[in-house]
């Protein structure tokens, strides 16, 4: 067994344990790493009476120290890079990272420039990608459920050969 496969198996075990621990409830810290504020509108909408994510045991908390998951938006700007890493390090293990919105997924329209980092996964390990510009609240709820393995992801790689 090579070292790589060993690490992979260990990673899988760890992942399963994390999901077990988080089974019932998840505390989320939202980190804006340079988004346009569009994603924040939708994250705020998650707590309104219509979507009310507290009913799933999902709480948006005030500090990374209380959080199990970082919900990161924005392409990670040069000026936010350090703050994002500090927030990640302040979050206790085990932890999940969700990249919300197209910018967080791969930089979106802001791309990879002198000021924009081009996506969260260049800086942190990402557990779930939630595309959308911004994703509607239902799409975010779906993404969080996928991250927790409560739902299977629907999308899979499509390759059509003619």
């Amino acid at each position: 067994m090579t070292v790589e496969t060993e690490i992979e198996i260990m990673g899988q075990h760890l992942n399963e344990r994390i999901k077990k621990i988080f089974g019932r409830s998840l505390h989320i810290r939202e980190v804006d790493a340079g988004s346009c504020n569009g994603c924040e509108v939708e994250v705020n909408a998650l707590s309104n009476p219509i979507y009310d994510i507290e009913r799933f045991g999902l709480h948006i908390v005030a500090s990374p120290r209380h959080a199990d998951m970082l919900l990161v938006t924005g392409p990670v700007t040069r000026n936010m890079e350090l703050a994002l890493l500090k927030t990640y390090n302040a979050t206790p293990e085990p932890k999940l990272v969700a990249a919300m919105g197209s910018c967080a997924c791969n930089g979106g329209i802001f791309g990879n420039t002198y000021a924009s980092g081009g996506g969260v996964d260049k800086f942190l390990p990402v557990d779930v990608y939630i595309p959308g510009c911004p994703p509607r609240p239902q799409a975010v709820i779906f993404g969080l459920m996928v991250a927790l393995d409560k739902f299977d992801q629907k999308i899979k790689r499509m390759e059509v050969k003619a």
Partner: protein
Amino acid sequence: MNEHTDAVRKDFKSEILDENISGSETYFRVKEDAAVRICDQLYHRMDCALVSIFATDRRKKEGCFRIHYLFSSENQLQNDRVQTANGFIIIQIDIAENAPHFHSVTSRVPAANWYEREIQDMFGLIPVGHPDPRRLVNFEDWPPKSYPLRKDFDIRTKPERVKGEYTYRRVEGEGVYEILVGPVHAGVIEPGHFRFSVAGEPVLNLEIRHFYTHKGVEKLFENITLDKAVFLAERISGDNSVAHVVAFCQAVEKIAGVDIPPRARYVRTILMELERLYNHLGDIAGIATDVAYAFGAAHANLLKEEILQLNEIVTGSRLLRGMNTIGGVRRDIGDKKDIISQKLSAFRNDFRELMDLLFASPSVADRIETTGRIYNDIAKGLHVVGPAARASGIDRDTRRDHPYAAYPDLKFKVPVLKAGDVNARTRVRADEVYESIGIIEQALSRLPDGDIKISVKEIHDGYALGYTEAPRGETLYWVMIENNRIERCKVRDPSFCNWLAIEYAVLDNIVPDFPIINKSLSLSYSGNDM
């Protein structure tokens, strides 16, 4: 003709090198050392507001940098109608590359503060005599002699991080201590750093530090094609996307010399007012949350959500994105007329009931009255815009003063209050909600038939201003096009003006009132930092 441009022509005859009029914009290229005097005169004697200062790198074509001072020239209202002579005066000076400095006007015109520091960071032109010459956009780890908006700076470079230090203003004395907040906040909001100096609870001084979300937008504009730039403009300040994209499109349409079809003008107006509705509801919900009026917050959020869902039905995007393009709009909303008017009439009743309850609650009144005052002279001096200005007795609204889209055809009032506190700002927003509903209803009933866009293919070289009244206030785009590409695009979000006011608004208030004051000013971080 405009009295202000005539006065400039007369008083500074020997200083003016060149004059150029295009539409409502009058450009005066003047001698470098005269700029401060002209700005001073325009601002203090003629009461013209300084709406922006920006630079362009013209080294390749004209061998110099150019700085543009943009003033809005407005005449007195007569019978609540605008005089047609309103326009913009742009004073330009040339700066040689080997002498990269210019005279600061900040000590005469306080609103110039951040613009001059921005030019210093982005172009490396130094404002001589600036009272606060610290860095603004680039952080202390940004290497010296590297200026992102100069043409020889490649957008893909990733400058190394250097060691540096940023000095904050210190307030010292017995019992004075500092509270540091941010950039990652406790709530779901954007990043920024706040540093309070307090003695007990009252705030003695607040220093804000922004540009954490600086994404290099203005540089990016110069590196993408025009049709892609439309979508970038939509994403500068996420919840003001329509106001931004319409301002951008209007500037480009002006350069191209096209008139968009009347139906497109009306559709744009409806979209802009829908945007105002959900933004104002969001602000009212935020204020209700911060004064712990949970009932009001839940209902205001519910109403905001109703508008967002309506947006999704009408445009396919909750934030009204993807609707505008150069030359008009991309989708017709004619078949959605009924659902919009139906939803809005129910919305109006619900909103009225909620506002009656909110303003009747003594616990709300206690928190918002006299809190976070911005006095009229401070608001004028810093060029505060939007609802925050109108709550401080400044009767300005771009929709009326520099009409665009379908606003010249529609009737609406501009609510103005004098108190300048959180209460006044909340009430101005509440009144504007009713006006917005009225505007949408008028626009729907008068929606002209015809095309929704015209094709704009070749755009000849030129420059123009585009402006809108976003929910947060006056939004400006100055676009320059060369060879069908954007040579320079200056974006001025309303928050870039209003952030300066918060440092005054919190003075003598207690720290727990800061979130309410912040919310009541409704400031965008992303629009400010770009």
